[in-house]
C-alpha cells in the first residue's frame, strides 16, 4: 500500500516523472510533489470542485482521482490553460472582465469547469450554465458574474471559430 512507485504524468504537455504511493491522489501529487499549486484543495471529498482539472480534455476532480489512474493521460491544469506566450484563455479574460471571482481560491476550478462547460455545449443559456457550473462552489458568491463570464467567453470562442 505504502510503497512508492515510479510514475510519469503528462502535465500541460510535459512528461513529469515522480515517485508516489498508490494511495496518493492526483491532487496531492500535483501540489505536494510537482509544485503545481494552482489546483486547489477545498474539501478533498469531491464536494466543492476547487480541484477541477482536465484529463484527456474532460473535467475531472483531482481529489477523487489517484495519481496512478492518470498515468499516460493528458492532464491540463490551470497553469497550462493560457497560450504558450502567456495570452490568457478566453475564459480567463472573461473572468477578469466580469469580475467573476473575489478571493480567487475556487477560481482555477471554476475556470477549468467553465472551459469544459462551453466545450460540452452546455453554455446555451444562463439557466443551463448555472446547472452545469453547479459543481463548483464559490463562497464569495461570484455566481452571477461567473454566469456572465461563461456567456462572454462562449461568444468570444464562437467568434474565433467563425473567424
Amino acid at each position: 500500500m505504502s510503497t512508492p512507485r515510479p510514475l510519469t504524468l503528462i502535465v500541460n504537455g510535459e512528461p513529469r516523472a515522480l515517485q508516489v504511493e498508490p494511495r496518493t491522489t492526483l491532487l496531492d501529487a500535483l501540489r505536494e510533489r510537482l509544485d503545481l499549486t494552482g489546483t486547489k484543495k477545498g474539501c478533498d471529498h469531491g464536494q466543492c470542485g476547487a480541484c477541477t482539472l482536465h484529463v484527456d480534455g474532460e473535467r475531472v476532480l483531482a481529489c477523487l482521482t489517484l495519481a496512478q489512474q492518470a498515468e499516460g493521460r493528458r492532464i491540463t491544469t490551470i497553469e497550462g490553460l493560457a497560450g504558450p506566450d502567456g495570452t490568457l484563455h478566453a475564459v480567463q479574460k472573461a473572468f477578469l472582465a466580469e469580475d467573476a471571482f473575489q478571493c480567487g481560491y475556487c477560481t482555477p476550478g471554476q475556470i477549468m469547469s467553465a472551459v469544459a462547460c462551453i466545450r460540452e455545449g452546455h453554455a446555451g443559456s444562463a439557466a443551463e450554465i448555472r446547472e452545469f457550473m453547479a459543481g463548483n462552489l464559490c463562497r464569495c458568491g461570484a455566481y452571477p458574474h461567473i454566469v456572465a463570464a461563461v456567456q462572454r467567453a462562449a461568444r468570444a470562442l464562437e467568434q474565433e471559430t467563425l473567424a
Partner: protein
Amino acid sequence: MSPLDAPVKRGGAGDGLPVLGAALARLDGVAKLEGSARFALDQPVEGLAHAVLLRATIAAGRVTRIDAAAAEAAPGVLAVLTPDNTAPLAAASSWTGAPPAQPQYRPLDAEIFHHGQQIAAVVAETLEQAQEAARLILVDYEAVPAITGLDDPRAGDGDPIDMLSKSWGDAAAALDKAAVRLTLEYRTPREFNMPIEPHGLIAQWDGEELTLWEPSQWLDGMARTYAEWFGLRFDQVRIVSPYIGGGFGSKALALPHGAVAAMAARQLGRPVKLALTRSQTFTGLGGRPATRQVLEIGATAGGRLLAIRQRGWNETSMNAVSVEPLGSVTGLMYALPNFDSRQNVVPVHTVQPGAKRAPGENPSAFGLESAIDELAHAVGQDPLALRLLNDAEHDHSSGKPWSTRKLREALAAGAVAFGWDRRDPMPRSMRDGHLLIGWGMAAGTYPVRRTAGEALVGILADGSVEVASSTADMGTGAHTILAQTAAEALGLPVERVQVRLGDSRLPRAPVTGGSQMAGLMTGAVHKAALAAREVLIGLALSDPRSPLRGTGANTLRLEGGMLVAPDGTAYDVSAVLKATGRERVEALRDTLAENRLKPEDHYRNFTTVSTMRAPTDGDYSMHSWCAHFVEVAVDEALQTIRLRRVVSAFDSGRLYNPKLAASQWKGGIVMGIGQALLEEGLVDHRHARLMNDNLGDYLLPTNADIPEIEVIDVGEPDPHASALGGKAVGELGIVGVAPAIANALFHATGKRLRSLPLTGQRLAEAG
C-alpha cells in the same frame, strides 16, 4: 473588436473618470486566473513535514489514555503530540486586549468541551503517512453527559450580558397601551463560514524567530497571539498571508490548530504544514452561534411603532463567551419611542463560536424585518409603506443625527426597479401556472466602524509607486482600491502603482473585519501618498542637483508623472530622482491622531480591537443602509422553494471602485440566500455531535440556486464616516436578505416561517 477586449478598464486615466471611483478590473486578478497566486498552503518551503489532527469522539468529559505506540512506529512518522507529552503554552490576552483568565493554554487538552476537539497531532514525512498513522491511535475517554444546544433542558436560560442591555422610554407601559401587539419568536441555527480555502498554515522556526504562512484577516493581531503563546517579542513572529481564500470573519484570530503546528515545528526543528480537513473546519472553529429571540411589538392601529421589547439568547461554548448581539439593529432602523432589549448567552458543548459575516446585525435584522412584515400584515398596510411611515429622522438609540442615511432612496430605487407597485398585497394571490409567487422585501444596515491605519507610500526612480501595508485582501479588492487611492493622490496612472499587502513585516493594519478596511486604509494610503509627494517636491525644490531648483519656484505640481513648476518647466519624476541620486522617496504615515490616539497607542491599536470606534463615537450616528426586494416561486405539491430574482439598493457612501463594491454586495446577498434557504448545522442530540460536517450535507448555495441579482447604488460621499467618504460595504449585503425571502414566502403561501433555514419540510410542517 472581440467582446473580451471592450469593458476591461485597466486604467482610469483614459475614460474621463477620476482614478479613485473608476470601475477598474482587479489588479491582482491575473495571478489568480493563471493559478500563479500562491496562497499560504501553496508556499514552497524546503523540508516540510506534514501534520494531521486527531479529534475527540465525545463532547464532554476527559481523555483518560492515548495509546500512540502503533502510530509512532508507523512508516514516516516523526512525532505524535498528545496532552501527555506537550508542555502548556502561555495563555494569550483576548482580541480586546483583556488579560487571560488562566496563566496557561493547552492546545492539546485532556479536558473535552466539544465533539471534534483536537486531542493529538501526528507529524510525518508525507501527508498520506500522517493520515494513516492518525488512524492507529487508540483513545480512552471518561464521558459525561453533554449539553447539546439551546433546546436542551439542561442548558437553562444562560447568563445575562449586561453590556448588551439597551433601553429607552418605557417599553412595558407602551406595550400595555398599544392597540396592536404582537409577540413573535425567531430562530437561526448554527451556521458556518466555510471559505473554500480550508484553515491551515505552514510554521517554521529559525532560532527564536517564528514564521507562519497562514491566511489571515488580521496579521498583527494573530502575530501578537502567537508571540504571547510562545513567549516571543512581537517582532519575532512574522505572518505571511499573500492571498486569503475567503474568511468572512473566520480567519481573524489565531486558532488552536495554529498553536499545534507551531509547537510541532519547534519540537522537530522542521517546517510543518497543517491543513484542517473540510470536516475539521466545522469543529476546529465555530461560525455563527444558534440564536433565539422573542420580539414584542406594540403599534398604533395605523401601524406606527410604539415599543419593542426584545429578549435574546445565543449559544456559546462551555469555556468561552461569544456574543451574537441580537439587538444590533432592532432599535436603529425605525422611529421607536420605547425600547427594551436584553440578551443571554447559553453555554453548550460546542466549539467556540466565531464571527460570520455581519455578526449581530444579520440575525437581528432577520427578527426585526420579519416582524415589521408581520406588523404590516396585521394592520393591513403595504410593508414598504409601513417602513416609510416609521422612518427614523435620527438615531433614537444615541439621540444623534445620522451622518448620511439614504434608506428612503434605497427603498424607492429598489421598489421601482423591482416593480413593487404591481404587487397584489393578498397572500396566495399571485401565481405563475401552478406555482405560487411571492414578493417580499426587507431593509438592512451595517455600522461604520473605524480604527486607525498605517501605510507606506514610496515613489521610485523608475517612476513607479509602491504602497505597503500588512492589511489583507481576501477578495475585497484592497490591492486595487489602494492602488487607485495612491494613483489619485499622486496624479499618476494606476498601472504604475504596486501594492504589497499581507506580510506582518510591512506597516501595521488593524483587523480586516467589521467592514472597516476600505475606509481606514484608503485614508492611511491617501495621507502617506500626499506626504510622499511633499517629500518629492521638497527634494526637487531644494536639492542642488535637482533640475527644478533653478526655476525659483516655491512649489510644484505633480501631474501625470511630471513635476511642473508655475512657469511650465516640467521634469519627469524619475529624472528628478535620478538627478538627485535617490532611488526612492517615501513616507510612512498612520491615522492615530485622526482617531484621537497617541503614538504610544500604536501597538494596542493594531494588535487589539480596543481602539475600534463605535458608529456613534463623535457627533453623528454612521451606518450603511440597504433594501432588498425578492421574488420566490413555491410548488406546494413538491414543497419546493425557488428564488427567482433579487433587486437590492445600497447606500455605502462613496464607492472607491463600483465594480468591486458590486461584487461584495452580491456576494453578501448570495451568502444571505444560503442562510435563508439552505444552511443549518444539524446536531445529533444524543451525542452533541454535528452530523453534517461536510459540504455535501451542510449545503452552501451553488450556482444553480442563485437567480439574477440587480444591485443599485444610491449612496453619496459621507464626509464624517471616513477620510475619503466611503461607508461599510462587505457585510452590508447579507443583512436583510433572509427576512426578505421569509416575507416573500409568506406572501406566496400565507405561511409564516420564523426559523431559518426556510425549507420545504418546515413549510410542510407549517400546515
